[in-house]
């Protein structure tokens, strides 16, 4: 049925997009906002490749309708930092070589950054649990957790 105008704050910029009620946030971000850094995986909430932060909460964009996010602030991995000023997590991922094939990394960084913002003192096992919804078939989890811990130390030094 009829398209609506959806206005979101995407990575700090205000964007107006057209979306029909049956379009997911995932598809609208990729196809209408050039946000191809948001990856499409299982499209049923299992893999976490499409994770984005909506109003401070990390969610799967494949199970969110674009029309639901009218007025919301949406952050993708691209909004976490820039090549010049990467997020401490992004920096730690680069330093430790935590990305292998890379397909899961945008979702992993989104989950971890949102989780550490909520729970800066989380234990190592809680950090592991926070990426349980992000499937990585290169099985790079060890380095994700190492990088998450290192990013906290780096943040503490700043």
């Amino acid at each position, binding site marked *: 049925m009829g398209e609506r105008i959806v206005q979101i704050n995407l990575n700090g910029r205000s964007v107006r997009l057209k979306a029909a009620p*049956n379009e997911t946030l995932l598809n609208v971000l990729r196809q209408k906002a050039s946000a191809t850094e948001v990856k499409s995986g299982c499209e049923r909430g299992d893999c976490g490749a499409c994770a984005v932060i909506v109003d401070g909460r*990390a969610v799967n964009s494949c199970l969110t309708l674009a029309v639901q996010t009218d007025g919301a602030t949406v952050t993708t991995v691209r909004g976490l930092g820039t090549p010049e000023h990467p997020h401490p997590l992004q920096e730690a991922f680069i330093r430790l070589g935590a990305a292998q094939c890379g397909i899961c990394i945008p979702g992993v960084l989104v*989950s971890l950054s949102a989780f550490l913002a909520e729970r800066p003192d989380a234990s190592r096992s809680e950090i592991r649990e926070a990426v*349980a*919804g992000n499937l990585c078939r290169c099985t790079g989890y060890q380095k994700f957790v190492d990088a998450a811990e290192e990013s906290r130390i780096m943040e503490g030094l700043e």
Partner: protein
Amino acid sequence: MLPQTDYVKASSVAHALDMLHQYGTGAAILAGGTDLIVDMRERRREPTMLVDISSVEELAEIDVGTGNIRIGAGVTVAGLAGSAIVQHQLPLVTEVTRHFADYLTRNRATIGGNLANASPGADLVPPLLALNASVVLATAQGERTVDLNDFLVGPRRTLLLWNELVRAIHIPTPVPRGQAYEKLGLRTGGAIAVVSCAVSMDQAGGECRRVRIGLGAVAPRAFRSSEAEQIMEGHMFSSDIAARAAEAAANSSQPISDVRGSAEYRHAMVRALVERALHAAYERSSEPQE
């Protein structure tokens, strides 16, 4: 692609109920979407109107009333996990949130959606049965309160009428202190339950009181094993009686064989999990507060 549909964001419970009434049986409530959007993608459901209740604030509250704890239907699993009221009074529920799906899904999935969806394996149901929860249902005409045990009719079937929504879940207080939860999945992270079991009880000088045993994923719907409860109720706790109650719980289940396990395996696991949960609940129990 999702099937074509229409959408309205409800601003209040009254607004949501109005929309349900107006759009009739083609309308569906959209809460976290973690069941509904998946069902729509797989064409198991094709609602013509989605009534989005995810930003209705009055559904997202947890408060302590007189004689009960009230949890709004729109409270997410993450919201349950972070609630001090839940942590202090309903450790059973806090425990379940740790085993529920994953971080991303917990941020969206709601308690109301878990109950309304009525999957035989819905994780919040056995604990809420063990806590003797009731469900507050609302239509534009008014409200009714039903026992969760009656609310669940069968697999994916509830008492909900087409124009009705789940507004809140009420848990009577004082809540028994002895609470325990056991879930068996095929792996530790985010797995669908093969068997899940929740127990709550009080004790008076070693005698078991108000014993409630909720079981999930081992019958067409989650249920309370009254056979097992009766074996415990009013008796001194012992390993022997816990073993007998666990056996009765296993016999009261009607497990199926599927990809996650055979019926025989489930039967054996009900016995093991109930026995373990009874011991843990007893250890945590105390004199009733009344």
